[in-house]
């Protein structure tokens, strides 16, 4: 395959960026999108140019590191996949592909396609945990009976890999799908109940502090989410926050 790539290049957080155009010729349709980027970078290095910086780690769709806004969609075309699971057979020979970083004030660009997603870490730190007494007789988690439907819903929320596709996709750069998944995975379970009110208030507050936008319920996040996180989580966050902020002392 021969492709024309339009890639966002930016040297550093404060530098001015621009779209650079590259041609790549020997691309197999069996390559993943990241392998195609590796081919591009090899060519750039051979030419003595600076390779394109992009995030990647597990390359099997479970770590949430790879990002990239490809041809107008987070993780490119296709549903339920990350960029490493996107294959070049999804494109045609001769295509022009736009590759841009996640765009959000809360995700400042570090270099090229790499953005700083530590805002997500700070949201989790503000309440995405349960306090467990570890001094001695730790309880077996399975000692508490949990309805199957609750366990399943909590697990579905917990599959969020924190990749940031929801923020990148949302026209408002809202992080509500992410935050609500992290709230739901705990509040649905008995172990998460004691801190549920504080958790939702603190995590929403931190989300606001980071400068994410407001959800307008377009639902684009849930469509582009590689893990299929549902908008039901956002509704759960909405009602828990409403209840918590009206009843919390």
């Amino acid at each position, binding site marked *: 395959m021969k492709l024309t790539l*339009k890639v966002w290049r930016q040297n550093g957080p404060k530098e001015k960026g621009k*779209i650079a155009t590259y041609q790549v010729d020997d691309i197999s349709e069996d390559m993943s999108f990241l392998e195609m980027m590796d081919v591009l970078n090899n060519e750039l290095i051979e030419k003595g140019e600076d390779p394109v910086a992009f995030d990647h780690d597990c390359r099997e769709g479970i770590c949430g590191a790879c990002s990239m*806004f490809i*041809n*107008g*969609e987070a993780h490119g075309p296709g549903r339920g996949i990350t960029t490493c699971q996107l294959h070049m057979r999804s494109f045609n020979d001769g295509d022009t592909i*736009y590759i*841009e970083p996640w*765009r*959000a*004030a*809360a995700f400042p660009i570090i270099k090229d396609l790499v953005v700083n997603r*530590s*805002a997500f870490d*700070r949201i989790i*730190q*503000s309440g995405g945990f349960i306090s467990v007494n570890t001094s001695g007789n730790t309880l077996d988690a399975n000692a508490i009976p949990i309805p199957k439907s609750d366990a399943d819903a909590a697990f579905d929320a917990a599959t969020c890999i924190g990749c940031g596709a929801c923020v990148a*996709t949302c*026209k*408002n*750069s*809202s992080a509500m799908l992410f935050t609500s998944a992290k709230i739901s995975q705990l509040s649905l379970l008995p172990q998460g109940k004691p801190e549920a009110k*504080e958790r939702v*208030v*603190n995590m*929403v*507050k*931190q*989300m*606001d*502090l*980071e*400068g*994410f*936008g*407001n*959800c*307008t*319920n*377009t*639902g*684009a996040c849930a*469509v*582009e989410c590689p893990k299929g996180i549902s*908008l*039901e989580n*956002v*509704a*759960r*966050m*909405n*009602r*828990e*926050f*409403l209840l*918590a*902020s*009206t*009843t*919390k002392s």
Partner: protein
Amino acid sequence: MANTLVHNFFDPKFVTLEIIPNYFKMSGASALIKSSLAKKYWMALTGLFLCFFLIVHLAGNLTLLAGDSARAGFNAYTKFMTSFVPIKVASYITYLGILFHAVDGLLLTLKNRKARPVKYAYEKPQVNSIWSSRNMGVLGTAIFVFIVLHMGNFWFRYKFTTLPTDVDGNFDMYGVVVESFKMEWYVGLYVLCMAALAFHLYHGFWSAFQTLGVNHPKYTPAIKKLGFGFSILIPLGFAIIPIAVYVMNL
């Protein structure tokens, strides 16, 4: 005070693994006024209230379809609606509701713009969301302009100008409405604005429930269907009236 230390989260020196201090813990009151979610709750509540107002407004308007025989009844109804105190109070609450909904929407839009200072060069939003959900501000602005024109044309003239009276001595509001609906451009504009209202309601009705936390596999399909029906029937009901009056007076 244990935690008086203030962090700048955007400072690159900020260490992610540092324990977050408690200083930002929100009180209940500020959570319900200042938070991102609070602005959304108010948007949803005022929106649903305005949906209810639309039903009441349409019920009165539909009497116009009876033609000239509705003149005395419509004029008496207008007088009742503008003089009965509980209705007057309700109408001022409605004006406030509209203004609140518009200002809150504007504030949310401005904050959302700030959240994405650099736009994408290539966007394909149509593959993951519907047009009306992305253009609520534009649709809302069209509706707001319509409301201003509409108030100027009917409410202002009723309140602040001298109108001819009918057989019962009531101001002939029926006559004013019919005169307006004889003008093609006015009928066209009215129908166009009702289309904007339809798209606004199509996203807004369901969206209000989602914002208030009502999303459940058992009920959400029904709420979406109800919203779809509401977004078609109410604007259609309003739009039929100027067309019918125009046709009846050809």
